[in-house]
């Protein structure tokens, strides 16, 4: 069924013994025993002090007085940190210089850090921080997208993609629809909150253990704030208790607080944010308002799409340029839009600065067009799946709104056909119609939605990675690379690549903590790129060592190169079989270099942002999900009852880990679109401030019937073992849940448009149902 013209060489005749195996996470046995250390579990050096931040309690205003006398006098307090303690710049922003470590005069969001307390214990630091008397003259905050639009408050200029004259084309289309979709933000809720432990060294050197996806960025920021050369700052990250984008730029502030405290006191200092503080201080997924118009015909064929994506960026730029750009890149999802305009605004509000979150804007852009596809179906009476299929990128209509050709769009077509059949979509659709006809209160819905997600950082310079591999004389292998482990299994996958290269058992490869002193100038572990980039860099490093070992074998044993093989922990050299450890020792004796720093940069990609031209993505990852829901039209309660997923991971490096990413991503996406609601009150205070009020999915929310399959099909691009990235794309499979809710609601009033925003909380579902069907 699937085209094979791109079959990779190793796919046919490959003899792989480590890669493609469902090896468990490298820390699994430590996790289940509670002996995998996170930042707060690292054995503290003697004399370690603890830091707690003091936060602004208004969203906007001018600081008129800061009285910290009571804080300084509190039990256990060693130091109180304010801007005057900063040797370098008071700035923890990734690029735009607009995120102060401590607010100096202006407060720009509720939760902004104003000072920090260093005390003997964390409890003492927290209690002391509450004693501050900070006087702030409040000003009227801009809180909502509408506030920002009215004030023309933007963190960056607008940006757009254009093809043709979509406004005119929509007008001229036989049928048209327009709508406004509100898309909520999302709190990362990594289980391990932001944390860092800073240990001062000699001559100003500092080592920071940071729970971060971007050690290099944390290194830069620590150096900037402490006025140190980068070379004096080392960042180490063994593992995070979850990241999801929330520990990319946003880990810096916590790390800097620890580092500054260590600088000022000369002692090791630790920060572990209280969960409520973490909610208040750190950015979230951007909430959006999509204003869309779409022109189409009676067959559901789209002629033009015109969308404005208003993004609430919050109080500063942070990573919003990339997030908003990616929302635009995915605003067309997998569809051919002959005439199209995608306009993006980047709005400034007095709320926490929104940041990276799995999908990086892509989900918001994609949700808008999927909402429009359902709108077309509801307007025409066509099945939503047929509308989607009628508009897929295809030969003759294979250009995305930014001009990249969808070279393997046939993969998605095949994938959709396969899922349509395996999920029994048509029969269930009919059964649901029959159920709904006789069920006045409970209504079911079904939807099958596609995902096309571009893989590569859209900032071209970030598509690089390094890895450091050492082979020791006992045959054990030390692997270090620039990627960070946040649960996704990156360390396991990259170790599999290295073990495969040397033909040794996986447990001979020791992956060590990501460390800026071992592999420098890294990119964040983000954009789903971890395995693609670091897997390649590690393979290059291992292959370089292996090449030297082979050269030695050729010379020492007098055999041709093609008679040498590394397999099963043994090196086969002509007729000789030498255990790998023995051969490693032999190479060392022969003065063969057994260490190599590998480097990889993604080929083919280019992007001229000004000209809006190029190929920002090396390839696309595809997937689709079919979700069934049941709703209660008297309460708005909703339950997802069955989900079928088919996802394209290329040829999987590790099917178990990939499945974990798909299921976990789906459930996280489902939370974003259903129960996870960020509520700011009219003063700009986040009232859903902790898990008591902010509700991520629990076990019973996961569909009982959850069928996940991998589309095992080689990547047409020469990625590591022809695999595809898997971190983010599955998140958007959950759009099928939102569509299924629309479908269920639509049964109340066929051919009418369903007024539903995201997240589809019980309240929003009930209000939509009430609007559609006024009852006595």
């Amino acid at each position, binding site marked *: 069924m699937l085209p094979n013209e791109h079959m990779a060489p190793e796919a046919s005749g490959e003899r792989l013994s480590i890669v493609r195996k469902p090896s468990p996470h490298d820390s699994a046995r430590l996790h289940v025993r509670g002996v995998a250390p996170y930042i707060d579990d690292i054995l503290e050096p003697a004399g370690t002090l603890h830091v707690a931040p003091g936060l602004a309690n208004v969203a906007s205003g001018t600081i008129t007085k800061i009285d910290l006398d009571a804080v300084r006098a509190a039990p256990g307090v060693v130091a109180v940190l304010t801007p005057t303690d900063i040797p370098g710049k008071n700035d923890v922003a990734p690029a735009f210089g607009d995120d102060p470590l401590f607010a100096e005069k202006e407060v720009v969001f509720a939760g902004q850090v104003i000072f920090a307390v260093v005390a003997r214990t964390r409890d003492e630091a927290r209690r002391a921080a509450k004693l501050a008397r900070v006087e702030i003259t409040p000003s009227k905050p801009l809180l909502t997208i509408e506030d920002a639009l009215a004030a023309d408050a933007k963190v960056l200029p607008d940006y757009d993609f254009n093809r043709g004259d979509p406004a005119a084309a929509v007008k001229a289309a036989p049928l048209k629809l327009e709508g406004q979709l509100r898309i909520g933000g999302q709190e990362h809720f990594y289980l391990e909150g932001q944390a860092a432990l800073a240990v001062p060294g000699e001559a100003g050197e500092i080592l920071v253990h940071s729970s971060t996806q971007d050690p290099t960025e944390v290194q830069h920021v620590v150096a900037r704030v402490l006025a140190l050369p980068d070379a004096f700052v080392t960042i180490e990250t063994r593992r995070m208790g979850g990241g999801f984008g929330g520990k990319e730029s946003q880990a810096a502030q916590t790390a800097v607080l620890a580092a500054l405290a260590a600088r000022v006191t000369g002692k090791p200092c630790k920060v572990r944010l209280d969960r409520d503080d973490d909610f208040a201080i750190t950015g979230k997924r951007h909430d959006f308002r999509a204003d869309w118009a779409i022109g189409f015909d009676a067959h559901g064929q789209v002629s033009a799409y015109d969308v404005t994506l208003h993004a609430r960026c919050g109080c500063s730029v942070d990573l919003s340029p990339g997030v908003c750009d990616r929302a635009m890149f995915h605003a067309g999802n997998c569809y051919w839009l002959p005439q199209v305009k995608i306009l993006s605004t980047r709005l400034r509000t007095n709320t926490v600065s929104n940041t990276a979150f799995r999908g990086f804007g892509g989900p918001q852009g994609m949700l808008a067009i999927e909402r429009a596809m359902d709108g077309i179906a509801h307007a025409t009476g066509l099945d939503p799946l047929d509308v989607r299929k009628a508009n897929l990128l295809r030969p003759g209509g294979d250009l995305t709104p930014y001009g990249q050709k969808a070279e393997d769009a046939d993969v998605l077509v095949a994938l959709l056909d396969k899922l349509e059949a395996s999920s029994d979509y048509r029969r269930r659709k009919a059964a649901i119609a029959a159920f709904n006809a006789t069920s006045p209160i409970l209504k079911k819905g079904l939807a099958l939605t596609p995902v096309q997600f571009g893989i590569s950082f859209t900032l071209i310079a970030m598509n690089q990675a390094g890895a450091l591999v050492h082979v020791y004389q006992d045959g054990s292998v030390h692997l270090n690379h620039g990627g960070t482990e946040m649960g996704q299994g990156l360390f396991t996958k990259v170790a599999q690549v290295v073990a495969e290269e040397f033909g040794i058992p996986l447990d001979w490869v020791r992956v060590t903590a990501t460390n800026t002193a071992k592999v420098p100038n890294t990119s964040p572990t983000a954009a789903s790129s971890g395995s693609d980039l670091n897997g390649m860099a590690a393979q290059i490093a291992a292959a370089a060592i292996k090449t030297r070992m082979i050269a030695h074998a050729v010379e020492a044993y007098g055999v041709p190169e093609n008679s040498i093989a590394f397999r099963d922990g043994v090196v086969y050299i002509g007729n000789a079989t030498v255990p790998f450890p023995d051969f490693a020792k032999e190479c060392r004796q022969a003065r063969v270099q057994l260490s190599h720093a590998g480097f990889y940069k993604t080929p083919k990609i280019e992007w001229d942002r000004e000209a809006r031209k190029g190929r920002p993505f090396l390839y696309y990852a595809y997937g689709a999900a079919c979700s069934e829901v049941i709703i209660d039209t008297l309460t708005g309660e909703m339950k997802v009852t069955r989900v079928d997923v088919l996802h394209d991971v290329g040829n999987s490096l590790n099917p178990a880990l990939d499945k974990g990413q798909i299921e*976990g991503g789906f459930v996280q996406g489902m939370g974003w679109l259903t129960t996870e609601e960020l509520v700011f009150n009219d003063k700009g205070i986040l009232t859903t401030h902790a898990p008591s009020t902010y509700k991520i999915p629990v076990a019973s929310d996961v569909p009982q019937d959850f069928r996940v399959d991998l589309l095992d099909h080689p990547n047409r691009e020469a990625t590591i073992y022809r695999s595809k990235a898997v971190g983010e794309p599955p998140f958007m499979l959950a759009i099928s849940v939102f569509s299924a809710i629309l479908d269920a609601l639509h049964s109340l009033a066929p051919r009418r448009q369903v007024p539903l925003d995201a997240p589809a909380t019980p309240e929003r579902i009930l209000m939509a149902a009430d609007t559609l069907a006024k009852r006595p």
Partner: protein
Amino acid sequence: MLSSPGQPQSHPRAAIRFTFRGAPVEISDFAPHTTLLDWLRLDARATGTKEGCGEGDCGACTVALSRQRNGKTEYLPVNACILLLGQVDGAEVVTIEDLATNGTLHPVQQAMVDHHGSQCGFCTPGIVMSLYALYRQSETPVTRGSICDALAGNLCRCTGYRPIIDAMMEACATVERSALPAPASVLAGDAEDIFIGDENAFFAAPAREATLSRLYANHPEAHLVGGATDFGLSITKGLAAPKKVIWLGRVQGFDDIHATPGELSLGAGVKLADATPLLGELHADLGEVMRRFGSAQVRASGTVGGNIANGSPIGDLAPSLIALGATIELQRREVRRTLPLEDFFLAYKKQDRQVGEYVRRIIVKRPAADESVHIFKVSKRFDEDISAVLAAFKFTLDGKRIVAARTGFGGMAGIPTRARKTEAACLRVVLDDERTWSAALNALADDLQPISDMRASAAYRQIVARNLLRKAFIEAGGGGATRLLASNSDLGLIDAAE
């Protein structure tokens, strides 16, 4: 020195005792507000147990408390972050580090590895401990539904839970759970009063009600603590440092239960977990409310009396019991008084409780044959969520006519409350004639003026309350399916014919 139960004593014990890592621990010097998690992580340097939220909602800090009770060893999962250290007196504290023996993983741990049940691993110790408690405690075969119930208080942000549920199914399928040995050392209960500190600052855990009564009368400003599932937050989030704490968990007889054909009497100290099956027997809807009440950890610590005395406008128990016609018994020294439960709640966070008076028991009438009970909990998330609206109805029926009605609402006012105009209007309802319903449905808006907050808007609450009354009429009249979720034990979807 231990004294035998019932033996009079003059000197209370000035230390708590528990078992940790198989050895007895005695602690006499700790602040009353010290939490178990801080003791584990900071004093014992046992960092396997994690803090995820510090408010008992994420479950990363779950440990198991093992005690001998009624000749059995029980294993209760609790949130260590909001449990007072003093509350572990008499228990073995079992943490994640205890499970593997000589490098061999416990079957639950091994299955978690085999099924890829951990990703970032931070929630994993808490998840494993919740599963371990279920593994040890459950006397019936586990189901996917019962596992979901056991995990309602454990958040995982990475896996999507499916592999965790699979792991538990396998762990329980392959091992004879009942054959496992009890832990090496579990202290028996004793009858000593505990008093640590002085007249100005103390942690007290009286074993005899007379001691409690006297102590509380002398120190009416002391905090009475049942399970600390709310009180704990005042420490971890509010940064309170309460000086005088009286924990009720050791008061003998305080958790007494009297079940008669006509009523159920629950001592204030009855744990929510123990009350759950009894309330479920009383009425299935109440059982479902209790299944969704907090989480396994919250129900294992929290008490019936604590939930009521706390006076929360959004607690689920009070409105349910108000509708059922419950009474509350209060005690101060030797004086007891009883009042209808709804009269106990005076205003937001203000109850009819006099100085030195404490909640002693709740007495609930069982529904009669002609009484039809309907209780609904509506929240943003089904499990482990505070209700946007809790609505409870009891109709006395004469054929299709309602001849008496009682209601109880949570989330609709500053206190759990009845909707009395609605109750009166219900007397005009004929269940099989929808035209007769409107007076009652419309009366609700007169009775109740809810507020908007982060859980729901006032408008939504109004509509839902009205719709729930409507559902109750449909159900009472024998109408068709009106509910999405019956129970997690079968993951409760009403399976409509396809």
